[in-house]
């Protein structure tokens, strides 16, 4: 079966994939499909805090801006943060895990101990410390998340590599004179791919939640950026009257994270038959 067919055969993966695809399309097309694309920065004080209506599907915010339009532009920020932060974490974590797992010894141990240090505090605590030092901006949120998330992939790949390097096919490749680099990249790495893919999908959801929390705490992009976490914290003083203000971005976060979690779950079932047997 082709990869796409296998994904479509799993309900969770299909729903999750569809949600994410929809989000990406919406994020890209935001300037064209948003009813009021100018409302990211513009304000109309006469239209402040209007409840949802035909003109403003999700109501308006404290500046009188259309919440739906801002939400669409917020999707761009959320996607960029998640993709870049997780991408960097994978690029740092995977080689470290591969090297530490393959060579082992003192250097490998030292690398893994370093990752333990980062795992010794909850991610958001470290990210808060970093983002607080660097100052509130999207770039710093991405940096803070990348610095704190790479150990997850390092740990994962380390464990897999450690198990794989004793396998016969690796010994065979070594006996045929393949270089260490070749063994690692062409023989071991492809076998860790499914674990990495699953972890990455679920990691995207976790990253989006942490990024939103940082935004909520005022450590994300400064206003008037339509970042979802920040919008929720802005809405706080207008509750409970303007219930729609916080509802829309909160549900948006929920939907996206749900999408990545479902996709991750589905991919795990597809890629790891061992676990699939356990769940049936």
């Amino acid at each position, binding site marked *: 079966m082709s990869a796409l067919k296998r994904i479509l055969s799993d309900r969770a993966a299909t729903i999750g994939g569809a949600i994410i695809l929809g989000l990406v399309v919406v994020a890209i097309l935001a300037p064209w499909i948003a009813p009021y694309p100018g409302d990211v920065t513009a304000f109309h004080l006469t239209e402040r805090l209007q409840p949802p209506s035909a003109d403003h599907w999700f109501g308006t915010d404290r500046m009188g801006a259309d919440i739906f339009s801002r939400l669409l532009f917020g999707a761009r920020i959320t996607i960029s943060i998640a993709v870049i932060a997780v991408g960097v974490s994978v690029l740092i974590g995977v080689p470290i895990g591969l090297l530490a797992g393959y060579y082992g010894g003192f250097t490998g141990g030292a690398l893994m101990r370093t990752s333990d240090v980062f795992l010794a505090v909850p991610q958001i605590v470290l990210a808060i410390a970093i983002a607080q030092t660097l100052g509130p901006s999207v770039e710093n949120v991405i940096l803070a998340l990348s610095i704190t998330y790479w150990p997850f992939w390092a740990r994962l790949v380390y464990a897999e590599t450690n198990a794989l390097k004793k396998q016969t096919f690796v010994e065979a490749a070594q006996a045929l004179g393949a270089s260490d680099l070749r063994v690692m990249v062409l023989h071991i790495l492809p076998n860790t791919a499914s674990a990495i893919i699953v972890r990455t999908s679920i990691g995207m959801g976790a990253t989006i939640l942490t990024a939103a*929390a940082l935004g909520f705490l005022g450590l994300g992009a400064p206003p008037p950026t339509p970042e979802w976490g920040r919008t929720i914290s802005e809405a706080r003083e207008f509750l409970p009257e303007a219930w729609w203000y916080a509802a829309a971005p909160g549900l948006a976060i929920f939907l996206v994270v749900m999408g990545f979690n479902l996709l991750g*779950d589905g991919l795990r079932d597809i890629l790891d038959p061992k676990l699939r047997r356990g769940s049936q």
Partner: protein
Amino acid sequence: MRRLEIVLSRLVWFIPTLFGLVFVVFFISNVIPTDPARIVAGENATEAQVQALRADMGLDQPLYVQFGRYVGDLATGDMGKSMYTQRAISDDLLRRLPATLELTMAAMILAIGLGVPLGVISAVKRNTLVDQTLRVISVSGLAIASFWLAMELQMYFSTKLGWTPLNGRIAGWGPEEITGFYTIDSILTGDLASFWDTLHHMTLPAITLALPAAATLVRFTRAGVLEVINSNYVLYERAMGFPASLIIWKYVLRNALISTVTQIGLIFGALFSGAVVVEAVFDWPGLGTYAVQSILQSDTKAVLGFSIIVGVVFIGVNLLVDVVHTFIDPRTVQ
């Protein structure tokens, strides 16, 4: 004695890991050369006054000297003075630690009480409507932003319905402090009114924190039970005519919980970090609120102290999990 060995080998790593953590956080928090002396001195201070204060605070020294001094102070339990509260940071943190621990533990109890039985039910009734519903709920529970859920619950149950207090830990001064845990202190002093009021205040923050944790536990318990339920010894017990409930809740659960216990250690970390934002929403006077206030005040040393104390608790809990593991799974010590 293998158990002692395991504990000792973990303890040996405690100090280096902690040192590494202090190192990382210290240097990260000094990447940008902010000038705490100028902030402390105030806007009207002269340059000479700022200079004097800088020397007084040791900020004129190179970074590695500052680091050495910080670690030295830390070894004696001194984390410096908070620029915001003007008190010793270690005192501030220790005074607030019980509030956070009390909240996290309440959430933990709630999460285990909900998550484990629901996980077992989900496994026993696998692929039925009950299982599907629980699956949808548990996947959703992991996708909700806790600060958003906190705000929505607060808006509905406190502001609109008036069922629960809006924020805080207790109305008034609270019971006489013995342990710092209000529930325990109020029982010890026989102050039942405070006990109920504490529980009342704790309800919403504990539910907010517990939801994702319970969702994780449902999933892990379900998977664990399913793995054990098909094993030979369960088949044997069934053939021997053991009551189904006894098999499930005693013999299956014990083995199924092995992976869940490890998960509980991880969950504790998740609850502890989740408390940062949840406390901020509910004005819960714990470590999280303190951390957020310190961030807003750019009080780097306080943020540093907070990260370290969380690290200590976190590493300690993981150690505890390893020890508990040796008791419920004797195979690890053989």
